[in-house]
């Protein structure tokens, strides 16, 4: 009995230590459980085709959540991330329709998209970190502004993406769907970024802004950089969404903003800043997707689906906390 207790205690200590070293562990466990449950209720949803469908649907949200995470690292928030996504979406679609659908011009247009995303991020950074406006309200205001610009660029949804673009997104290379490569590149990017000083600085600022300032870190510049990185990731998200939807829609991203925040938190990041992982946000975004599907696959009646989905996300949040803070 006592041996068992001691063992379970040492076990819980080990779990806690593991979670401290790898804060994304709880999110990974939840994701794995959801994955298994989805497979039980609908075998096709975890087939090779089902999984590539999941990725092609949610890669946009995954990128957006990762970008959001870097802002959250510093204790900030970006409520305009979805609007930046919409803006980049309509900008690249409009440009792609103006020029031929060649590979070179498409790549050129995508780099313009990255530039637009970075510029939006810079704008956010300047008004929030530079002018010291409250992040939550200032980025909300800029989201309305960016949506306005997107509506100016493309007043109503409807322009198609060139064939070459979305056929690549849905295509395969050596029998492996393109979206798997995108995910691979993202994971590599997340890994490389996690080792850079810029990301470390964001966490330092988020942990204790005063202390960071007093130790001589350029806090304002670091926070601005966080928003720029988020803007760039929002443009990557737009590339994925444009691939999956093959069209331009000036309002497409607005509802994704809060999902990106939720994904970051589900992934173990703290909104107060200073703690989290971008990898966790990848898992968090996929978790949100799988919860939506599971709620349907278990046969929830239509009028309860919103309620059950909300509860399921809350449960996922609580389970994550229980796993990481078990004593």
């Amino acid at each position, binding site marked *: 009995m006592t041996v068992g207790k001691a063992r379970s205690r040492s076990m819980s200590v080990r779990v806690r230590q593991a979670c401290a070293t790898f804060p994304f562990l709880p999110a990974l466990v939840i994701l794995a459980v959801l994955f298994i*449950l989805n497979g*039980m*209720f*609908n075998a*096709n*949803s975890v*087939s090779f085709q*089902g999984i590539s*469908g*999941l990725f092609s*649907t*949610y890669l*946009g*949200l995954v990128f957006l959540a990762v970008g959001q995470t870097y802002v959250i690292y510093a204790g900030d928030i970006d409520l305009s991330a*979805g609007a930046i996504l919409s803006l980049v979406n309509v900008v690249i679609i409009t440009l792609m329709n103006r020029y031929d659908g060649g590979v070179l011009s498409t790549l050129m247009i995508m780099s313009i998209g990255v530039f637009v995303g970075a510029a939006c991020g810079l704008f956010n950074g300047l008004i929030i970190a530079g002018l010291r406006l409250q992040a939550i309200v200032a980025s909300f205001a800029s989201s309305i502004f960016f949506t306005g610009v997107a*509506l100016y660029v493309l*007043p*109503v*949804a*409807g*322009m*198609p993406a060139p064939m070459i673009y*979305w056929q690549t997104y*849905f295509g395969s290379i050596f029998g492996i769907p393109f979206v798997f490569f995108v995910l691979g590149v993202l994971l590599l990017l997340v890994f490389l970024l996690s080792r850079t000083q810029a990301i470390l600085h964001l966490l330092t600022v988020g942990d204790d802004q005063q202390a960071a300032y007093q130790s001589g870190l350029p806090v304002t510049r670091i926070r601005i950089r966080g928003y720029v990185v988020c803007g760039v990731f929002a443009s990557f998200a737009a590339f994925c*969404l444009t691939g*999956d*939807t*093959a*069209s*331009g*829609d*000036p*309002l*497409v*991203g*607005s*509802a*994704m903003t809060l*999902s990106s925040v939720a994904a970051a938190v589900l992934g173990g990041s703290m909104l107060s800043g200073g703690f989290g992982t971008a990898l966790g946000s990848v898992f968090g975004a996929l978790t949100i*997707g799988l919860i*939506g*599907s599971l*709620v*349907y*696959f*278990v*046969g929830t*009646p*239509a*009028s309860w*689906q*919103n309620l059950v*989905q909300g509860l399921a996300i809350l449960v996922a949040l609580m389970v994550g906390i229980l796993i990481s803070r078990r004593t």
Partner: protein
Amino acid sequence: MTSIRITALLASVAFASGLTAASAADYKIGLSNGWVGSEWRTQMISEAEDMAEAWSEHGIEVDVVVQSANVDVPGQVAHVRNFINEGVDAIIINPNSPTAFDPVFAQAKARGILVIATDAEVSSQDAMYVGIDHKAYAAGTARWLAETLGGKGSIVAINGVAGHPANEMRVEGYREVFAEYPDLKVVNEVNANWEQAQGQQAMQNILATYPDINGVWVQDGMAAGAWRAIMDANKAEDIAATGEIRKDFLDIWVENGFTSAASVNPPGVMASALNVAVNLLEGKELKEPASAGKYGNAMYLPIPFIDGDNVAEVHAELEGKPGYYSYTSSLSIDETAELFK
């Protein structure tokens, strides 16, 4: 201990999945709704569910599965992918975007799944649209307003969400009609995002800026709010304005004798789409192929119209219904059969 609990969980899960797998329907149809912000959408789904049940009297078992939640566009794309994974025969969707579903609809079609959009048109050539023409919807009430005002005076328009395809089509619809009346001036157009509170506030601002306004063209979902502002300003007798199809609005319309009219976008559109779907699944062909609309894939349904002449009748028809209930209509199973060869 834990392992026992897990086994129990797995067993119950397996049991539940066994339950859902058993069904002996002729057709399984997936209904997807991406926004649950109004009772209109709830009514749309329940009417479609009732219609599916009604098919059993005609010897065809139709099983509907529903996904309805507030989702972003990827979330609704996931709805469609879930239906594909489940192997439904047809998908009927009230889409959150006109264009974003092109690739996923193509994937559905490749698996032999019939896709029908309702309430909002989609650009995909792999799907068809069964619903009302939002342009004609707006033109109907615009014509009524212009005629009621004798073709002259100043009017304002209160619209929904800028950039939303249905909104843009409606704007196009009333602008074309008002352009035919040179003495009719549209002095302002505002967006109130299909929210009653914003509609009311917009109307207050309009009345403060243009106290001599003669008419208001306002979309449903905001008209009740606009009328509240008109009543607060004691102008209900001087202003003609479009209205709503909800029971609670029809109540005050009749009670106060408003000068009002409403084009009906009936929540029954999804039920009509379901009837078309079942006929197509039965292998029947439409007499007139669905080729209307700007995407060339639409089949437009009739738009009922309510004005001073028939409002009492419509109101009486809705007697006993709850306030949120919308006046509705849909193609009956027999009427739908008439449309097919």
